[in-house]
């Protein structure tokens, strides 16, 4: 075993890359849950985003067009969730599971002819002085634009939820949909928008895995990242900036265990590969004591006649 083979600068830089898919999916789901909807289909929307982004960018040669289509793909799948839960008033847990099962199937169907292909590279940004800085440059200023977009999205969601009128309405809908309805807000419309936004974010996160993080297409490649993103929302107590911290924490664990595998630590590979999931459980246990910050109407079905 050779721990000195692990380069701390590269480790932190790749941590940010590993965290971005989680961050994108989690910030989308955070908005959905703030609106009082529990969408367990994140994994399905991510994998559909991963393949639609991959396919489009391979066909067109443009990764950005790929990311755009990934967001659209995720949103289209989440539209099914909207129909089920907002119009057919189906159980949200069951509908989310359906979305994941369906998404996993349809993605492997779509991806059959894309196995083993390399996608076009997404360029890295290059800032004149900053990117050349030693240590700080490679860590913070030599990444792809989507990574920065993810961080900007967290800031935008924070501002939107905290300071805008729409954010206030969204939170009201999530806390008490009957009261919001009585005040004349369109509960179903607000929730629909939130779910579509969540779908688009999950799709982006999925495409980040297939286009930048890995980068190639394999069946079921999201490997539970969508579920970890759901746990991350709980971890973040439904606060955007804490989701960012959480994503980097989980990204760090993933990268560290991969590095330890490569360095040949005496622990078998399988046990190292378990660690992100086990730590997710541990974090859930520690944080589940405090449920006060969860939106009050989370997971409840709304129908105007009630």
């Amino acid at each position, binding site marked *: 075993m050779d721990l000195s083979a692990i380069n701390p600068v590269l480790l932190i830089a790749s941590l940010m890359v590993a965290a971005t898919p989680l961050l994108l999916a989690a910030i989308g789901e955070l908005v959905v849950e703030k609106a009082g909807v529990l969408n*367990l289909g994140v994994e399905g929307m991510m994998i559909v985003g991963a393949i639609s982004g991959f396919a489009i960018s391979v066909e067109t040669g443009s990764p950005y067009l790929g990311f755009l289509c990934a967001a659209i793909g995720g949103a289209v799948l989440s539209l*099914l969730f909207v*129909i*089920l839960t907002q119009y*057919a*008033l*189906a*159980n949200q*847990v*069951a*509908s989310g*599971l*359906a979305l994941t*099962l*369906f*998404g*996993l*199937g*349809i993605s*492997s*169907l779509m991806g*059959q002819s894309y196995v083993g292909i390399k996608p076009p590279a997404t360029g890295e940004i290059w800032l004149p002085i900053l990117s050349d800085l030693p240590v700080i440059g490679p860590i913070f200023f030599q990444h792809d634009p989507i990574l920065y977009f993810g961080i900007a999205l967290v800031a935008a969601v924070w501002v939107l939820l905290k300071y805008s009128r729409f954010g206030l309405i969204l939170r009201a809908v999530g806390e008490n949909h009957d009261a919001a309805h009585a005040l004349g807000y369109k509960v179903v419309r607000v929730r629909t928008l939130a779910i579509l936004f969540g779908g688009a974010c999950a799709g982006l996160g999925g495409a980040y895995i297939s286009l930048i993080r890995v980068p190639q297409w394999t*069946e079921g490649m999201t*490997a*539970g990242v969508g*579920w*970890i993103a*759901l*746990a991350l929302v*709980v971890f973040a107590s439904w606060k955007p900036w804490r989701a960012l911290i959480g994503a980097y924490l989980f990204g760090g664990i993933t990268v560290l265990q991969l590095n330890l595998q490569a360095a040949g630590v005496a622990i*078998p590979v*399988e*046990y190292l*590969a*378990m660690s992100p*999931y*086990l730590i*997710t*459980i541990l974090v*859930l*246990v520690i944080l*589940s*004591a405090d*449920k006060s910050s969860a939106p009050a109407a989370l997971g409840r079905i709304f*129908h105007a*006649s*009630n």
Partner: protein
Amino acid sequence: MIRLEKRPQSSHTWSMATPLVAVLATMIFGGALFGILGTNPLTAIRTIFFEPLFGEFAFYYRPQLLVKGAPLVLIAIGLSLGFRAGIWNIGAEGQYIIGALVGAGIALAFYPLDAWFVFPLMIIGGAAGGMAWAMIPALLKVRFGTNEILVSLMLVYVAEQFLASMALGLMKNPEGFGFPGSRNLQEYESAHNAELITGTGMHLGVVFALIAVIFAYVLLNRHMLGFQIRLTGDAPRAARFAGVKPARLILFCLGASGALAGLAGLFEVSGPAGQVNIDFNVGYGFTAIIVAFLGRLHPVGILLAGGLMALTYIGGEIAQGQLGLPSAAIQVFQGMLLFFLLALDLLTNYRFRLTRGEVA
């Protein structure tokens, strides 16, 4: 203007009819999907639903119906208990793997001893293994209020890694020429879950599945615990006032579903699959969720739904071979079924009304 109105009581007719309508809708839309993929929709549907039962090689496929249906029914029966009470165990796949590993571990420990008690011990071990794995989310939920959905699902990934570690390490066949995977249990008489009647596909797992259906039926309809499960699902507040202890229900529902999933895994690994290998699990734990809903969380319904879902598995394999339909297409087909089912369920509790004039 059409308006949605809540029924005073859920409709019995629609509750029975929705699974059938959902299957029909899935056939139509699934057929359209197969059409897009370049196969004749009618041929594809015929191949999937009729070929295994009445085709030329039906004598081979009919036993497969029991082999594939048994694990689905076993797992789905367990899941349905929890789902009825709003306790969501979606990690049956993990409990299935652990049950198989514990059972196979016992068998491999006794190898090559020829004794009558090996297989019964394996059955107990399989159930205990699955139950223990399901007890993790159960105890965490009872003690800390941790979300059982996320924990049980995370444990699927842990179990898969554990399976890989076992197949490549501890349980690897020492005479396997370095190939991954354990000894083949089909060749170890005392541990082999053989067919009870040759050529029928009827193994002990099928018997257990039928017993589970009967037990679940009696439990839900005749036993106090079953009443508490139904009450908690339909009216949680009323259940609290009636003195139902949620902790007890959580431990029972998760424990029972884990044990059944573990049993399913054990019967699979010691019978049809034969050995512990990296990819011996094929997702029954997830498909069983669809089976549970398709059967409307009712034991008899689940029995029928398990048969239907087994049919799509077998028919899907035939369609793969004969029509070149991709295996993922069947997965989409199964997912589609769950969608239609959930959407059409609206008609059970609500009805459409034509109203005149303005609506408040």
